[in-house]
């Protein structure tokens, strides 16, 4: 009787064993990479909103300040989306017939709310506070990018914890003078580390405390 499995079949079995391990490892790696990818976090993907509001036009060209609409940013953890009334301060006179603005007019008249799509969505166990950052010299553009050039807003950073910690461990790399916080075109000086260190001291940033868990999680 002839052997069913000849010695050469050993190779097949070895290949299949190591192949399975390889595939499994790769699968894990691919999954890991996928969940850390910009695609998964929707980084750099422009998100359409119910009203095609352009930051590029309002901030970049017309020169509005961030705080005109995001009134809470310096006093609250939350930099709010403006109410329809804020829009109507100008649009009761400008572009009154623009059909794109219909949801704003509706909302203003009926009191119904506009559902804007959330672009920056942190996990529920993270307690980010806008006011402490802008008060201590972290500019809007550090996290949000060049908003003043965006027609439609996208998420500039992946917002991973490692990325947060990069600054929380060494804020001197990103801190800027308080008066420049809302400046979208701010460029860090060549001697940023030196300047940064003195700003950290001036604004009394307790750097070691910034990596305490309860600073962001609770």
């Amino acid at each position, binding site marked *: 009787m002839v052997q069913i499995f000849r010695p050469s079949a050993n190779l097949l079995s070895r290949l299949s064993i190591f192949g399975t391990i390889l595939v499994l490892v790769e699968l894990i790696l691919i999954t890991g990479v996928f969940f850390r990818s910009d695609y998964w976090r929707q980084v750099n993907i422009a998100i359409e909103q119910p009203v095609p509001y352009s930051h590029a036009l309002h901030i970049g060209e017309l020169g509005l300040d961030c705080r005109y609409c995001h*009134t809470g940013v310096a006093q609250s953890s939350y930099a709010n989306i403006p109410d329809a009334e804020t829009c109507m301060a100008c649009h009761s006179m400008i572009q009154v017939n623009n059909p794109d603005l219909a949801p704003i007019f509706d909302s203003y008249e009926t*009191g119904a709310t506009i559902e804007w799509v959330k672009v920056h969505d942190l996990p529920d166990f993270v307690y980010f*506070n806008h006011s402490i950052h802008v008060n201590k010299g972290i500019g809007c553009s550090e996290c949000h990018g060049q908003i003043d050039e965006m027609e439609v807003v996208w998420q500039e950073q992946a917002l991973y914890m490692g990325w947060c910690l990069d600054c929380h461990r060494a804020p001197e790399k990103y801190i800027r003078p308080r008066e420049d916080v809302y400046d979208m075109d701010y460029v860090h000086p060549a001697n940023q580390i030196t300047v940064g260190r003195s700003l950290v001291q001036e604004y009394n940033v307790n750097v070691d405390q910034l990596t305490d868990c*309860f600073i962001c999680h609770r």
Partner: protein
Amino acid sequence: MTTNSNNTSLDLNAIRARLSGSQGQQLWRSLDELADTDEFRELVEREFPQGAAEMTDPVSRRTFLKLMGASLALAGISGCTYQPRQYIAPYANAPAGWVPNVPVFYASTFVLNGYGSGVLVKSLESRPIKIEGNAAHPASLGATDVFAQASLLTMYDPDRSQLVLKNGQASTWEDFTAELQNALSVQETSQGAGLRILTETVTSPTMADQLNQLLTTYPRAKWYQYEPVNRTNSHKGAQLAFGEDVDTLYDFSQTKVVVSLDADFMSPGPGYVPYSRAFTNGRKVSEEHREMNRLYVVESTPSTTGATADHRIPLQAHKIDSFARTLAQRLGVGSAAGAEFTEHEEKMLDVIARDLEEHRGANVVLVGEHQPPELHALVHAINDALGNVGSTVNYIEPVEVRPADHYVDIADLTSEINAGLVEMLVIIGGNPVFNAPADLRFDEQLESVNFSVHLSLYVDETSSLATWHIPAAHFLESWSDARAFDGTASLVQPLIEPLYAGKTVHEIFAEMLGQSDQSNYEIVQTYWQSQLDAPFEEAWHNALSLGLFDGTASPVKTVTLQGSAVGEFVASESEGIEVVFRPDPSIWDGSFANNGWLQELPKPQTKLTWDNAALMSPHTAIGVLGLNIADPNNPTINDYEGLALSNGQMIDLDYRGGKLRIPVWITPGMPEDSITLYLGYGRSKAGRVGDGVGFNTYALRTSDAPWFGSGAEVTNAGERYSLVSTQDHWILEDRDASIYRVGNLKEFAHDPEYLKHEIHHEEFGDAEHEQFSLHPNAVYKYNAWGVVINLNACNGCNVCVIACQAENNIPVVGKAQVAVGREMHWLRIDRYYSGDFDNPATYLQPMACYQCEQAPCEVVCPVAATNHDREGINNMVYNRCVGTKYCSNNCPYKVRRFNFIQYTDIESPSLKLMYNPDVTVRNRGVMEKCTYCVQRISAARIEAKERAVQQGDPEYIIEDGAIVMACEAACPTEAITFGDLNNPESRVSKLRAEPINYGVLTELNTKPRTTYLARINNPNAELETE
């Protein structure tokens, strides 16, 4: 007292025996501990009982596997899509001055039994999320009771009634008003002869005005009041004593001696917070201040007041009268010839009488609401004879609109219905079908009324028998008003539109008065317009922002004692076993039965949750259950085991025509031959939480003996029932003086340091040296948060537990989960007994995470999910936790809690609105524990830092008192103090420097940040030898 086995070395026992003289007696928690049962050893040795982590119920295990399969499949599907889109819905027109995500506090009034107490309600984006006390309000002083805290959950309760019902069928408000008008037009012809209105206790001025109008429009109509817990006896007592109706106010601030005759003045009720606080302030001792008041309590049921007492005498409720009369006789008031007492009681009477005489004008004698009017009158006479009137005891005009005898009112109403005189019955709140005296059979009568309306938060027992049910607006959704115990009027202000289109009493009355065009707001405002001086707008807004109408407190009234006050001594005849009724400390009269926070709250004395029971003393239980115990006065360890096993044994109670089968709970400190029954359980239409929980004790309560009566027949039913008590949960190993320290004033005054010895120093001879530790020696250069809890101020009232639950999104787990030791309360109150089981001293100790500087939990976490921060707080990071539970296993204080399953309700839409957005809502599989309310610390720190950087200050400063923890804020007696230990001027630093400050289990070198001030008793020297 501990009958522990003698495997510890003889030296230790000798040391303990020696120390027990200086640091109080040995403590015990339960009969199980005395018996040292296997179950008890397991609770001591393990963090969770054996098997707690396994799913033993086969059905739930199968369901669990199914769910797991489903969630795995879903995980696979969702893996290839984006995270779900979320939306932001801004205002269309934001209110002026609104700052997003910054809470605003509104003043309102919480009403219990008709009496108001001021609250400040935290509102975030127009949602009420936490209730705090209003420091400006005399009935609140910044604190609350448990019910005010928990009423938040009631407002969001998804079981609340949402529809107008007619005979159980959905209907509309319009249909109702049309039928109401029809019925009223019939009444108009007869001047309202067939109209009856039944309310609970009324103090609301607006409601009084409306009732007045109604009774003018319908002169033959009648208004009745009934509430199972009421002040009938004290009103009738005042009538007897003074010939007129007055309310009594007590001033504890200067009292030296307080005698409570079954008066539980440190439990919820009118004046609860101010009385507790003033009395407790007289008990706070320090190195400088070595004086305190003395409290004698004679009571028929162990209570929070009794736990605070220096001398406590358990006495059957009917004997308190003769005790009081004998005491009065010794003070020269009346006579009580023939009363018989034991030798010990005689001695107590002598001593109390002498103590009272010595402090004339600086003492208070109080009597409980449960005692008969004659006794109330006598106590007025005693206070008068002692010269207390005008100093510690004052009288005011009654606060209630019409003080009524509630039992007569409900009896009259029932007989009128029976006689066919009632054509139209309007019931405002309450639940008389459930809680009216059983002998009246109110339920049968209500059905025979043609047109009956019930305004109620739930479709309860009464609603389902009434023709119409109208969903009521919760107090957080209504405009109204109420008066406090001292007469101060304040407004009830809504925080949110009624969630379920509920109506207020004012709207119903306005409808009946033909003023339906007025809104709830307009009704209340119109009334006050007629009361307030111009300019009205200003006065109104002041009242809204301050939370009360300034200067509306009732003025003190001078009254003359009538000869009839003293009354006659009638030797009480009592046969058989006495039954005593009390409002439940957790769910009150049953109206909070559907509130999970309150149901799960361990009761202050028994630590029972999710049930009521027949409380009785060990000796009574031996007799009633026929236990085979040779010498009850000298029990052996086996006897204790037999007693411990009797908990949950069912008995049949046959009392005044009612029958009830209810489990036994052996309660040390109960008087002999007496059974206490808590009211409010056994609801059939409370909602999903409260239905079928406990036993309906109203079935035994009759109108002639609403609070106590004798002659109960008790038989052993031969069945068992599973009662769940947390008294042995999270128990620490028995090193008594390391856990709870008790001293007495005499020795403290002589040597304030006398409680300072550490046992381990004596054991190991290491008093001077810093103990060696492997932990890095951290330096705290910023703030170092710490807490000091004054055990002399804590009476175990539980408010802190509920406040913590509301603030920190702590879930309710249900009876079955509590039974396996999985309750989630971050803050628990341990109850210890000391002394024999007939009348032990009761000690209460709030316990939450101590934020150890050298924390045993931190070093064992394999994923570093619990870490130390630069301010000394032990950070628990939920998103890192993988649920190994090692930390909990290594925690000597057993203060960590684990989410074994998905306890938090993350599905119910209304509950989602309630959760505090500043605290993570925890999921299954993570550990959690007290954080010192880190969200409040964080908010204060950010505010201070921003202010400093804006002003260019070099450093930020958080003022002492700027951060108040939820438990601290709610505490009526200010027992808890939070602050910065790095600031030598902070209150907490000063308290920590007190000689009676000590830490729990400090021999473990954990360096806890929470420490205690030892309890100091002030026993009378003449009684000390006993």
